[in-house]
């Protein structure tokens, strides 16, 4: 019984389309295995088969050496396989301890939940995970980071032997990420097997023992993390030598000042010094820094989302920005960081999402002409290369990358002079990343200015002409990008206060 989990020759298709094609996947006890691949590569499907959410068409699954056929998630959970979901599987209106022990409450008799015991066990779990959360706090009241850790506690309460984590750090701060990685180390030492799904290469190499790459429903490679590097993995993922496109291309930046703000006051709980920012025509400016360094706050203030007024100039005209309406009128657009919450109406179609900010542009005499709207949406979909069977498809059914393209298209259709982007490629696979970066470059080329906030250094280095590094609300460094800029240097500036 060397392998804890052994999936052999797994086949799965949905309505005639092969999603998994003869995938084999095996993990040892106490191993941390990263599972990577573009959106649509089959990672989620494979894991959903392992956890009983989907049935298997062909192939076999052995868990602890025994063949299994899980019919639903709870069967897999009882067998010791737990999955921690990207969309948290916690109930916001219930307390931490109620969530952890939901469906496996300690009972005093057949009906009566032993609340004291439940609280005590929760505290013990929290202590073993070094998380400081009050068991009776509602989940809606704790931080996203802590809820991720509570989710892990929930899996451990069921004595999970195999823990599947789907993009666990997507919404964590750096400190919380560190706690998570410590925890993974601890679990590994206790013999828990971890399958770690992520788009973030840096993390994968920090935490994983081995890496399996999936592409188009087949396994491309499984390598020891020690014997490979980021370049190799990315090459496996996109199937060609990684990313000429994803490297900085020197661009011609105009001499004319497009956007300027002096002594900007940022009125938010995160302290930000009064700030000067100039951006030139055709320029892409990056804001780098850790979470809470004030990056997002600067974007939001420029866009009028925070209280207080600021004077800015765009193309030589002066504006006072006190609200989002002011900002939009001045020709500013913001693509927010959380597309599911702030960027899209998930239940609506692509078309409906696209036309929201452009309502004025496409209505005639106060009514919306369907043919104009459809033309407008079709143009946007083809211009921005959104992969979809049609403009009436519900947006939540698209992959993350295509959703993000729609968000971008939605704002670019307004043709703003200054485009503000907050984490434009978060949760997007590498192929779509390359396309989005190219879209942004082209937009800047048309004589506009762009300010990008991103946690991903590679992305900033690929896209920006100039990078401002922020630290605790101050701009501490300004770096002109070039082909020779080294990642280590930028990383150093971000991590160190000077």
């Amino acid at each position, binding site marked *: 019984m060397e392998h804890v989990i052994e999936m052999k020759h797994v086949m799965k298709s949905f309505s005639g389309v092969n999603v998994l094609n003869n995938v084999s996947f095996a993990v040892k006890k106490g191993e941390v295995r990263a599972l990577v691949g573009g959106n649509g590569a089959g990672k989620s499907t494979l894991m959903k088969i392992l956890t009983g959410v989907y049935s298997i068409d062909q192939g076999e699954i052995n868990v602890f050496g025994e063949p299994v056929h899980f019919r639903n998630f709870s069967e897999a*959970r009882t067998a010791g396989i737990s999955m921690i979901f990207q969309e948290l599987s916690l109930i916001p209106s219930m307390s931490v301890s109620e969530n952890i022990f939901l*469906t496996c409450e300690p009972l005093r008799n057949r*009906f009566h939940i032993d609340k004291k015991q439940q609280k005590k066990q929760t505290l013990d779990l929290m202590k073993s995970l070094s998380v400081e959360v*009050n068991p*009776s706090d509602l989940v809606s009241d704790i931080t996203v980071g802590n809820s991720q850790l509570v989710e892990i506690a929930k899996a451990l309460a069921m004595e999970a032997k195999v823990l599947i984590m789907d993009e666990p750090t997507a919404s964590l701060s750096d400190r919380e990420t560190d706690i998570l990685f410590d925890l993974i180390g601890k679990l590994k030492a206790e013999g828990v097997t971890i399958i770690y799904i992520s788009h973030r290469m840096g993390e994968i190499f920090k935490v994983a023992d081995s890496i399996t790459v999936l592409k188009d429903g087949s396994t491309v490679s499984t390598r020891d993390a020690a014997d490979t590097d980021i370049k190799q993995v990315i090459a496996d993922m996109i199937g060609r030598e990684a990313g000429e496109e994803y490297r900085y291309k020197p661009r011609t930046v105009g001499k004319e000042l497009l956007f300027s703000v002096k002594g900007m006051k940022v009125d938010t709980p995160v302290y930000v010094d009064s700030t000067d920012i100039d951006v030139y025509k055709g320029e892409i400016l990056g804001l780098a820094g850790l979470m809470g360094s004030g990056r997002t706050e600067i974007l939001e203030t420029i866009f009028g989302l925070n209280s207080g007024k600021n004077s800015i100039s765009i193309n030589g005209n002066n504006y006072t920005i006190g609200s989002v309406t002011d900002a939009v009128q001045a020709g500013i657009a913001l693509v927010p960081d959380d597309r599911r919450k702030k960027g899209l109406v998930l239940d609506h179609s692509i078309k409906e999402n696209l036309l929201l900010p452009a309502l004025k542009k496409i209505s005639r005499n106060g009514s919306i002409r369907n043919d104009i709207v459809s033309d407008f949406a079709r143009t946007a979909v083809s211009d921005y290369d959104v992969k979809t069977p049609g403009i009436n498809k519900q947006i939540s059914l698209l992959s993350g990358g295509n959703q993000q393209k729609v968000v971008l298209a939605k704002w670019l259709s307004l043709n703003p002079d200054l485009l503000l982007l907050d984490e434009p490629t978060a949760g997007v696979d590498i192929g779509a990343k390359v396309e989005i970066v190219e879209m942004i470059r082209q937009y800047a080329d048309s004589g506009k200015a762009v300010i990008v906030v991103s946690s991903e250094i590679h992305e900033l280095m690929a896209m920006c002409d100039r990078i401002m590094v922020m630290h605790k609300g101050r701009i501490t460094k300004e770096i002109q990008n070039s082909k020779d800029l080294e990642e280590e240097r930028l990383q150093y500036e971000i991590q160190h206060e000077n």
Partner: protein
Amino acid sequence: MKSNTKTNEMTNGRIPLRPGITDTFKEINWNKYIVYIAFVGVFLFFAILLQDRGFLRMSNILNITRQTAMISIMAIAMTFVIATGQIDLSIGSVTAISSLITALVLNSTQSILLSVLVGLGMGFFIGAISGVIITRLNIPSFLVTLGMMSIAKGFAMWITNTASVPILNDRFNFIFGTGDIFGFPILFVWTIVFAIIGHYALTYTPYGKKVLATGGNEQAAKYTGVNTKNIKFLVLSISGMAAGLAGILYAGRMQAGRYTYGEGDELSVIAAVIIGGTAMTGGKGSVIGAIVGSMLMGVINNGLIIAGLSVSQQMIIRGFIIILAVAVGSKQKK
């Protein structure tokens, strides 16, 4: 400003594991208590305004508990329905049909046990049908139970051709309507019994947690191993059964089965549950709140009648009070 941020970080980083008094105070969710405050306020208002007209007389107070028993019992079950994010509009009609069936069976067999079982079974059956349609065909409960409301009412009118069915069995009428135990109306005793069961089930049993989880985040509950379809089916069936019991109690109190019972009760019940602090979107529920909410509605009805307002005036004022109470409650939430 800078120092401010720092202190914030400090307190955020160190959350006390054992809540102190201040934390306990902070943990109080004031929205939960709005119904009690409203109840006391309205009660005092009528007590002062109507002190000469016998509002505070014991007989009147006991009468209020009699009048609200059916609403309270249905509200207890409805708390579970709304806590799962569903709604049951059919309860008023179920009440009517159950009162008639119970009366018919009782009159033909003289068996109290059998007639009560048939009345409860009828309610459970109708609730279960709604539950099956909602969970198997994935149709919103609002629409299914709206249809069921009409179907059940139609049957109730059909079985006796809209004639009422008098009940002459005194024991039945005592147990389910007119009786008193130790000076308390038996209807009030029924209410208390179901309140205890309902509160216990929601607060202390795994079943209650599954109900709240289903309404709080259905997807998450499913992925935790909660059979959410089963839970929805159960809460609707039990709501039907509670409406069946309410029909039996109406029959006992009025000593007859009649198709007009329960008309409009669904609205009073839903209002009572929401005012009582159960979230319309599900995930949060309070059985005790729902009962006090029902009592509040009862006190308002009773007070307005004693004040000599016409039925039409009562309806208008009741509507305003419902909106006001829900508005205050939802404002507190933020």
